[in-house]
């Protein structure tokens, strides 16, 4: 059977699609956002709240910063799914493995 799909494959290496690029102003805005979140984290550190809530808020804020840098600065939001999958696999596995190690050694508080 002849293969019309052969014309799709291999794919030409993607040049960065400039249309998808955030502008410089956008980048600065994102950086300001990150700075604000950091300030909030520091403030929360001093807040007098129960430990469980403190940890939840701090982890949540860290995750927001992580996702922001990964999506916009590392361009994952505009790149394809394969790269997201590769990176998230490493991340997810690291989280999974060490959550199990920590819980098996009675360390999750």
């Amino acid at each position, binding site marked *: 059977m002849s293969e019309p799909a052969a014309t799709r494959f291999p794919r030409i*290496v993607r040049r960065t699609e400039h249309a998808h690029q955030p502008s410089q102003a956008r980048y600065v805005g994102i950086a300001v956002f990150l700075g604000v979140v*950091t300030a909030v984290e*520091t403030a929360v550190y001093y807040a007098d709240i129960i430990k469980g809530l403190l940890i939840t808020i701090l982890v949540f804020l*860290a995750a927001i910063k992580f996702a922001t*840098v990964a999506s916009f600065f590392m361009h994952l939001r505009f790149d394809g799914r394969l790269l997201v999958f590769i990176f998230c696999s490493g991340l997810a596995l690291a989280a999974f493995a060490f959550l199990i190690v920590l819980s098996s050694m009675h*360390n999750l*508080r």
Partner: protein
Amino acid sequence: MAEVAAAPHLETTATGYDNRKLFMWVFLASDCMLFGSLIGTFLLYKGRSLSGPYPQDVFNIPYTSVSTFVLLMSSLTMVLALSAIQRGDHRALRVWLLATAFLGTTFLGGQAYEFTDFVHKGLTLESNLFGTTFFVLTGFHGAHVSVGVVMLLSLFILSVRGKLPQSSSLNVELVGLYWHFVDVVWIVIFTLVYLIKP
């Protein structure tokens, strides 16, 4: 690499990603496991030191949050550098590369000062579990930042010598990916090591 008869100068790959870009992301996934193991070790031993100094004896949160801010801003300058070379603005590229290297070095200087301060307060590699796990984890991160600074300065020198044309923007992108990853690891470390009290 396979030749393409119609347009021999165009690179082709089966996924559409340049080999080096794919390699860098694979490397970063691997590095997640590296830092995951170091952070896992730190968290396991958190609160288990038999003697001091303890985190609350040595940490200066406002100081470290400034350091964190510096590293975050270096990610901004990095992405501005990439934007510059993609536009063909080589002068801006060099300015932003230098700025990133400068901010990275500032971060390292801040770490060095912090470490020295901790050592004076009695926290060393040998003192207790906290000292061991803290210095090895942040030390590895610092080593990653240092390698990053070397790569940034190498790009700067290449650009100054006219060997970093707009068509080579991938090189800046790759160093950028590495640099942002190092920043992102610090985001995790800052939260789990510094901000979460035992």
